[in-house]
């Protein structure tokens, strides 16, 4: 897997797989705010990666089942019984919250107060 084919490669002028609008759309789906510089940087880098992984399109997978996990386990259950050894106290659970009050985690308002 030689890296020499990547050195000095000209920046592709062909149409990028991702447009800036798509980058912004994906960022908003992922709740990420990007600067203008980041949009442009990621547009180039992500397009390059997508072009590379897109090679799977040409693989014949007719009739091939999907693998989403390799253990073969299904529907593992346990007794509906409290296991105190793997519970956190309220204090422990809230200890790392940036903002908390009276044992509650404080978050930004999601609805406007009347």
């Amino acid at each position, binding site marked *: 897997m030689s890296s020499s084919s990547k050195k000095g490669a000209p920046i592709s002028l062909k149409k990028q797989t991702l447009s800036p609008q798509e980058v912004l759309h994906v960022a908003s789906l992922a709740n990420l705010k990007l600067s203008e510089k980041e949009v442009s940087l990621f547009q180039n880098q992500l397009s390059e990666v997508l072009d590379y992984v897109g090679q799977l399109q040409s693989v014949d997978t007719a009739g091939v089942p999907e*693998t989403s996990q390799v253990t073969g386990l299904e529907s593992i259950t346990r007794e509906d019984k409290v296991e105190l050894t793997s519970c956190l106290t309220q204090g422990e659970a809230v200890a790392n919250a940036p903002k908390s009050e009276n044992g509650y985690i404080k978050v930004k308002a999601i609805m406007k107060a009347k």
Partner: protein
Amino acid sequence: MTKDLNLSITEILQGYKDHHWTIQEITQGYIGRIKKLDPQVKAFLTYTFDEALRQAKEMDQTLVKNPKILDEKPLFGIPYAAKDLFSTKGVKTTAGSKIIENYISPYDATAISRIKRAGGILLGKLNQDAWGHGTSGENSDFPPTHNPWGLDYVPGGSSSGSGAAVSARMVPFATATDTAGSARCPASFCGVTGLKPTYGRVSRYGIISMASSLDSIGHITVSVEDAAKVLGVTAGHDNLDATTPKVDVPNYQEELNKIPKGLKIGVPKEYLEGVTPEVKSQLEKAIEEFKDLGFSLVEVSLPHTKLAISVYYIVQPAEVSSNLARFDGNRFGHERETFGDEAKRRIMLGTYILSAGYYDAYYKKAMQVRTLICRDFAEAFKKADVLIGPVMPHTAFKIGEKVNDPLLLYLEDVFTAPINLAGLPSLAIPCGFDQKKLPVGMQIIGPQFSENTLFQLGHAYQMKTNWHKEVPHF
């Protein structure tokens, strides 16, 4: 007391039995070594020296009263360090990331509590590529770790601190994770032994998730014998991780020398392509050693090898985008803007791949090709009992050489990612050096739950060769 602490876990324990040294002396020795070397290596993010010395003192007292405890607790008085993805109660767990740079775990990961119960003494938390995203250690949100064999070189990643710390003998073992080589790559670049167990062999509970169908919980040691010892402690079904099958844990140490005669070793022809001449020649020498030991070599093929990176860089970012959604700055950590570039890239890749209109073309397709990759291995294991190959296409590169080209770094995973996609175990062991005296590593791959056989073969190789005994001097 050996100054450079070039000791295995087995040797340390023997020293306790023979009263050569105390637990406090050994612990103090490793702490001294960390203080001396870590400013250059930067393997650690957090030190836990005070608590370690307190534990060591208590354990020495226990040892005097009850010498048999060395037989009851397999890691009694053994210092170690944990990759910063592992939750350690009361100690910072940062995942190598600024977002949770101040997060203090309220509980121990199962692997950590098992090591603790077996007598392990935590000396600190180790540096890594943030969230496990990387193959060089350079994606840490903190100053990156350096390779003890060449301080200008990367130690490999993402368990960069784990590889470097064991290589420099700052600890006798370190925990690691492996999602596409993150334990095997640093082991290979740093000249130490790295284990990626079968997916589900070791509980993932309490370990910050990267890609939930691929993450394997492993460790880095100075020898295969030690790797077997540690797995005996961490392995086994866990009620808290529903992906750990109820498969018995063999007594790996007892079985270590019982290597089956007539073992067939497969060499995948695709794994000898695209490696540097130096890696190829060390691997060929290793193959000769195995022949000398009386094993037969067969050529096998894993035809879909070249597609594994594409499958991996679809499946993994998709799972990453889901796992990192919890970092919203509410229950812990800073806001999402604090993510580093690589994390943002992978989150966005994953989100795009899973979004409406693209799911079938990328994610569904990748899951189908994943099946083809699993089938490749199943076919190969009809002809051979284990496979051997390189871990990385080359030896360590210089810090800064590839960091500006994400795709270039992704291509590093060519020989490691397929193993994670199939959920197989793989043991990385040192097999030589290149002309710059940078380590070369090879991996022994087996069917699921065949760690016993990997240890037996690796141990036989380490009884015949001395690569694993070499220590960097700086």
